[in-house]
């Protein structure tokens, strides 16, 4: 049952339990593995929220390293910014087929809490964490931070989704939001750091498609101190989210309006319909955030501690299906991937291009969470 891959696109799957009930990674494993066809074994990954309930107040750094000796350097950098509460190797299983493709790197995780006296002037705690991530990614050769949020983590590498899932023993984790990806690299190398999801703080993103505006976007986020080191276009999307969402505090819909901006002719149409405020907003966002717009075909799932958001490019050049069953909202590239883990959802639909599906936690209220509406 191997080597069935053929020309295809990437595949993505994700779900959120809006009540915060945690489920085993077995479900997302089954879902993404049913779409194995969409990848070619050159990358797969998972991100999960709610997996470290006993360490929820600490930043969990998952770090990918080429060899164990790098730990001294990494610990050195982390010690400058944080108190390290706990550090350990992420348990992995030997999956013989994985070693036929590449030698898997080592995965280490640190639970850390920031030191008080290391913030630069005007810097927030999150800014400081981002600075620490960028320092490790850029300054330590062969070490990459693959996730860094609280009570969440990413697990990814070069392999089929089932290989990677078994490698990290994904079924041993319990989470309330899960996203997963199977990759078919087209423009960039298939390497361990280039697998999805891409994360920064507790934002994580999986992406099917290509970002043809990568150069513009990269230069834009670099102005704000982000460093693109993972050789893949999707990385820049994670940083754009962090920038617009966290630093510029845009509401969710405004962020998506910047990233998948409507065509000018559609903005004109909004004006004709006399929706002046939305028209003005859409115009201003296109003007101010023109460099944050992602061009090219894509379907993306974007998760953070309060919710899961799925959206398409403006003309739907990649597949995207969503479903609801009670408190769980599912999103995937193919309907079958949803049906495999939830055979009879209450509602299944194909969202329109540029119309995001926003599934927030039930306990999300406007003062605690990010505003969803404009």
């Amino acid at each position, binding site marked *: 049952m191997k080597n069935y891959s053929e020309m295809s696109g990437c595949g993505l799957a994700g779900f959120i339990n809006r009540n915060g009930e945690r489920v085993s990674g077995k479900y997302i494993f089954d879902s993404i593995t049913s779409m194995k*066809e969409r990848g070619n074994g050159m990358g797969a990954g998972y991100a999960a929220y709610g997996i470290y309930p006993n360490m929820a107040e600490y930043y969990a750094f998952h770090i990918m390293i080429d060899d164990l000796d790098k730990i001294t350097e990494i610990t050195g950098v982390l010690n400058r910014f944080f108190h390290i509460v706990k550090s350990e190797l992420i348990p992995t299983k030997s999956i013989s087929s994985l070693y036929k493709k590449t030698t898997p790197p080592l995965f280490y995780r640190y639970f850390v809490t920031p030191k008080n006296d290391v913030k630069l002037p005007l810097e927030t705690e999150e800014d400081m964490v981002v600075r620490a991530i960028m320092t490790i990614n850029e300054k330590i050769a062969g070490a990459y931070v693959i996730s860094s949020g609280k009570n969440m983590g990413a697990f990814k590498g070069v392999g089929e989704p089932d290989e990677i899932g078994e490698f990290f023993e994904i079924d041993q984790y319990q989470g309330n939001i899960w996203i997963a990806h199977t990759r078919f690299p087209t423009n960039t190398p298939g390497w361990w750091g280039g697998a999805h999801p891409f994360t920064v703080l507790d934002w994580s993103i999986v992406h099917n498609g290509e970002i043809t505006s990568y150069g513009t976007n990269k230069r834009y986020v670099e102005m704000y101190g982000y460093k693109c080191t993972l050789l893949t276009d999707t990385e820049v999307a994670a940083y754009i989210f962090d920038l617009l969402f966290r630093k510029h505090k845009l509401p969710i819909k405004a962020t998506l309006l910047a990233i998948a901006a409507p065509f000018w002719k559609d903005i004109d149409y909004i004006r004709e319909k006399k929706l002046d405020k939305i028209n003005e907003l859409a115009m201003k966002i296109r003007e101010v955030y023109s460099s944050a717009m992602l061009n090219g075909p894509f379907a993306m799932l974007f998760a953070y501690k309060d919710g899961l958001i799925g959206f398409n490019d403006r003309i739907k050049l990649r597949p995207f*299906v969503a479903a609801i069953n009670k408190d769980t909202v599912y999103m995937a590239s193919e*309907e079958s*991937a949803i*049906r495999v883990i939830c055979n009879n959802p209450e509602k*299944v639909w*194909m969202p329109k291009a540029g119309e995001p599906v926003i599934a927030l936690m039930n306990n999300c209220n406007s003062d605690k969470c990010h505003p969803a509406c404009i």
Partner: protein
Amino acid sequence: MEVKQLNETTYEIVCRTAHYKIVNQKIRELVNKNASKIILREVFGQRYIGTGIKEPIKIEIHGIAGNDLGIFLYNPKIEVFGNSQDCVGNTMMKGEIIVRGHAGDVCGYGMRGGKVYIEGDVGYRVGIHMKGYKEFVPTLIIGGKAGNFFGEYMAGGKLILLGLNRKTGEDIVGDYCATGMHGGIIYVRGEVPEKYLGKEVKIFEIDEKEKNLLKEELKGFANRFGLSVEEIMSKPFTKIVPVSARPYGRLYAHRWGIASGVIK
């Protein structure tokens, strides 16, 4: 995957998450053994079902039919009890596909013959590049609504959109409808906003003669889904046809052909 023989020529395959290659191989094996009807149960997105078979067999699918259902279809009749994914009837030639649910994007892509009936909505780019030649006239009928790029670059055949489940205020079809269309015909039950239409087409009302033709065409659809043709016909239809003739005829033609007048 489990295979059961129900009677002399009917087989049942429980697919679950078996790989599509194994399922399709099994189907072909059974067809070679004289199967005339194959029932697929618990289908979870297996691709390419029905392709590579020339016998006029019946295939029943229970579950979610995978991408490229009935691609290059050449005779079989496929009925899906459930939804189907993208690219239903891709480049199909002969036969019939019935979907009792919705279908995804790019349904009927490059279709050149046969019939596809979808009960519910369809996604984006449906009926793009359909074509027809002499006795090969494909028909694609959709009971629900369609997304953007409906009938884009259509070159032949009939594309009928009914919007039976449409609620008030909902568009029956999306933007860029019939963009670049240069052949065939589209019927839409209801109005199509001018701003959604491509530049290459015009809207016409249908006359009595055409109404009768449309009725004939709708009979098959109404029969399959237990609807009445009269009720479907009770609302006015819009006809969309191209106003240009062979706009791309010279695009790939050899210079000599044009110069000598062989290609006009």
